[in-house]
């Protein structure tokens, strides 16, 4: 193949404060190829691409386009050199329609004519096979449509070099397939496409060459056909890592959480949870699979007390058998009441009778840990506040698309974010900052969070690091039930395995883990049982040790097909 260089980087370096984001990077991109930029979180992939797109300016080094050195000082300069970047966080104006967003920023001196622009947009969509309505407002669009608008935006400007920052992170498998077809059509048209990603299977599927970055440095570029996933992983991480998830046997499972016939309607009046029932057991990881938006979020929020329910019951079985009662969860009155019902015994096995005892005596007995429960406590979570549910040890480490939206406060530093979960502890009116500081330090060390120090506002960390902080904090509180939704979304391989190991550790410690995931390979490798949701219904519960991907995939879409059939039958 006759290769023509499109863009060449020589000795590019960039630092932010004390963090060196890129060091002495050389990179060449050819015309008519798809190049993957592979690297862990914080390895400087996005920063490097931002320098080509004019968002940042390099501290040192040169960029050559068609052999000539250029200075790309602003996104406008990048457009002038026919470079377009599709950012991970879409840069679109919500209240504008697709066409208005596409023509935004173009000063071609011609007359401002939206109708003509719309026609040009339609031409491009037909040429490469996009599906989009140019008049649709962005706030009405699904994520994949927004991405299409982003790509159209750079194509409309006549870009020859397209940079896509983690384009598949937000797409369903079907949408990814469509995107890849479009990318192949563009490659055939002679365009250079750079994809930032850390999904190895996609790298292998779509790219011609792979450039690997580690800690801001360019480790090497290889031809995709000459390499393997294992080799790429080693280049990325810098050491051998095993791409297998250990799964231990379930030991002494006990029912921990019973969900019985949950029903829930959302604000738009659509039924999002439809007669959901299941049991989560201690020492077991229960996976939840399903197409995005099948009710995963509502289900977890319902258990955490954040989602109003129409009907149903959530029963929490608190492991208290032969353990002492404390005033942490029970008032004196409740202790007396339970004792009168004969729920307690002393260490020697004799039943507790508190009648006739003074309050002071009872308090002393409880505080000394002399009064023990006969059985595990059974309680309904529906009459508890979210705070009470948390206090009982039911933890939700929800990691939605917007990582900072739930769980962390962007402008606060790591220590303060740890304190969000502990500020109620202690009796002094001043909070004790020492324990959260220790905890933050532990998390940074054990999860390898890349941060200048513990006092950095969380919003300044890269996405993956933010996620590690969030998951680390939730796991640190020794929960009884741990719910993790998409805890590895956006994380690189190394960090993902760290999180899997953490979840496994929780399982061994007897926690009931509920893991909502999107990658079926991971679900099958990590979980013990998998509950499949489809359109708010449980379409099946399978044993993860014997189930196949196809089986789960079928369950994920099962009821949808039947409803479609029903609809067509009615017509």
């Amino acid at each position: 193949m006759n290769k023509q260089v499109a863009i060449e980087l020589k000795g590019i370096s960039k630092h932010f404060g004390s963090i060196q984001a890129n060091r002495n990077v050389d990179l060449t991109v050819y015309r008519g190829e798809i190049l993957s930029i592979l690297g862990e979180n914080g390895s400087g992939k996005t920063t490097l691409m931002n320098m080509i797109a004019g968002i940042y300016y390099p501290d040192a080094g040169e960029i050559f386009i068609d052999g000539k050195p250029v200075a790309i000082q602003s996104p406008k300069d990048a457009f002038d050199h026919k470079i377009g970047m599709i950012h991970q966080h879409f840069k679109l104006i919500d209240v504008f329609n697709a066409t208005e967003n596409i023509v935004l920023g173009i000063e071609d001196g011609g007359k401002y004519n939206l109708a003509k622009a719309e026609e040009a947009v339609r031409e491009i969509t037909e040429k490469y096979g996009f599906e989009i309505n140019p008049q649709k407002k962005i706030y009405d669009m699904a994520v994949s449509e927004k991405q299409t608008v982003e790509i159209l935006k750079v194509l409309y400007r006549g870009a020859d070099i397209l940079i896509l920052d983690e384009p598949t992170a937000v797409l369903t498998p079907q949408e990814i397939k469509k995107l890849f077809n479009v990318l192949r059509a563009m490659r055939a048209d002679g365009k250079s496409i750079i994809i930032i990603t850390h999904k190895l299977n996609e790298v292998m599927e779509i790219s011609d060459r792979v450039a690997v970055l580690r800690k801001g440095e360019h480790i090497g570029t290889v031809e995709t056909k000459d390499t393997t996933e294992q080799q790429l992983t080693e280049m990325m991480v810098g050491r051998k890592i095993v791409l297998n998830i250990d799964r231990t046997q379930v030991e002494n499972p006990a029912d921990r959480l019973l969900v019985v016939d949950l029903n829930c309607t959302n604000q738009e009046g659509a039924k999002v949870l439809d007669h959901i029932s299941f049991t989560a057991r201690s020492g077991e990881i229960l996976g939840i699979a399903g197409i995005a938006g099948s009710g995963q979020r509502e289900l977890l929020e319902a258990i955490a007390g954040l989602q109003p329910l129409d009907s149903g019951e959530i029963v929490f079985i608190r492991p208290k058998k032969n353990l002492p009662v404390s005033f942490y969860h029970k008032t004196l009155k409740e202790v007396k009441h339970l004792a009168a019902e004969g729920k307690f015994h002393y260490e020697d096995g004799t039943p507790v009778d508190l009648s006739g005892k003074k309050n002071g005596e009872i308090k002393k007995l409880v505080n000394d840990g002399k009064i023990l429960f006969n059985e595990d406590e059974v309680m309904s979570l529906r009459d508890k506040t979210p705070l009470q549910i948390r206090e009982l040890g039911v933890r939700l480490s929800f990691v939605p698309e917007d990582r900072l939206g739930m769980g962390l406060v962007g402008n606060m530093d790591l220590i303060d974010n740890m304190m969000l979960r502990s500020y109620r502890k202690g009796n002094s009116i001043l909070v004790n900052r020492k324990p959260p500081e220790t905890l933050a330090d532990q998390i940074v060390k054990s999860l390898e969070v890349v941060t200048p120090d513990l006092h950095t506002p969380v919003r300044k960390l890269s996405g993956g690091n933010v996620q590690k902080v969030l998951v680390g904090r939730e796991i640190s509180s020794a929960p009884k039930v741990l719910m993790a939704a998409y805890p590895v979304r956006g994380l690189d391989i190394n960090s993902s395995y760290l999180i899997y190991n953490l979840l496994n550790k929780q399982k061994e410690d007897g926690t009931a883990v509920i893991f909502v995931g999107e990658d079926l390979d991971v679900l099958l490798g990590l979980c013990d049982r998998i509950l499949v949701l489809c359109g708010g219904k449980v379409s099946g519960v399978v044993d993860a040790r014997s189930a196949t991907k196809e089986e789960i995939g079928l369950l994920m879409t099962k009821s949808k097909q039947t409803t479609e059939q029903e609809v067509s039958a009615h017509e």
Partner: protein
Amino acid sequence: MGTFAAFFSRAIMQGTPLLFGAVGEIITEKSGNLNLGIPGIMYIGAISGVIGAFFYEQSDYYIPAIGVVIALLSCLLGSLLASLIYCFLTITLRANQNVTGLALTTFGVGFGNFFGGSLIKVTKSEVPYLSLAETGSAFSATTPLAGLGWFGKMFFSYGFMVYLAILLAVLASIFLNRTRAGLHLRAVGENPATADAAGINVTKHKYFATCAGGMIAGLGGLYFVMDYMGGIWANDGFGDRGWLAIAIVIFALWKPVLAIPASYLFGALYILFNYLSLPMSMIPIFQMLPYVVTILALLITSIRNNREKQPPAALGLSYFREDR
């Protein structure tokens, strides 16, 4: 009919300074700048025009048309300088917009009163106001059409600035919705990072919109002194009209054309108590009406939560490209 025509024309005249202020503030806010200094800028615009007109009136050869032009130019210059203070602080230095705006309003009122008071001293006037009768009458000159009975009274009995305000509102609407520059300006106010990534110069657009908006608002102050008051400056005479203009921006859902009826409605509500035979104690309740209407408008738009009827998404936020 006579009373209604009188009420109608007073309402239009009351509404006109509000319309200038509201159109100016809408253009400013579309760039993401919440300029609470508008009331102050209207004061500064008014006193600047008064100063220009005052010195020209001292000359021996007074030509009314030139007096009008001088008053307009000095008003625009004064408002521009005041807007530049706001721009430099909030855009270049990224100071807090609310604090800067409120400070500018306090400054503007004081600025107006200081120079207004000084001019009154200079004229050795017996009464606490300054009269620029000649320039004033040039501003409020009407065409013969004003004599057409109640019809003329309602639609043709105003000075040229009343029509200028309507024209500016319509032009602002066309600019924002039908031109490329308007699209870019709205993009800056909705999401400056996106606009920046699209190659739009955010700083330039913010400066332009804030200065143009401030100059339009300043004209409202000038209209009040020269036409509505007939060329008479009194300290604190402009009152709280600047704040009403900002309320109209919300009421008109950031649409300049809607600001036209909204301003006249507010003008009518502002003077309604004069046309009802009310006991003195009831008057403040009626003076409250424009604000009550604004709160109701806010309530209704918030409940309906239509994405098209919300303030610019980045309103009140300063923009710094490398801030992550």
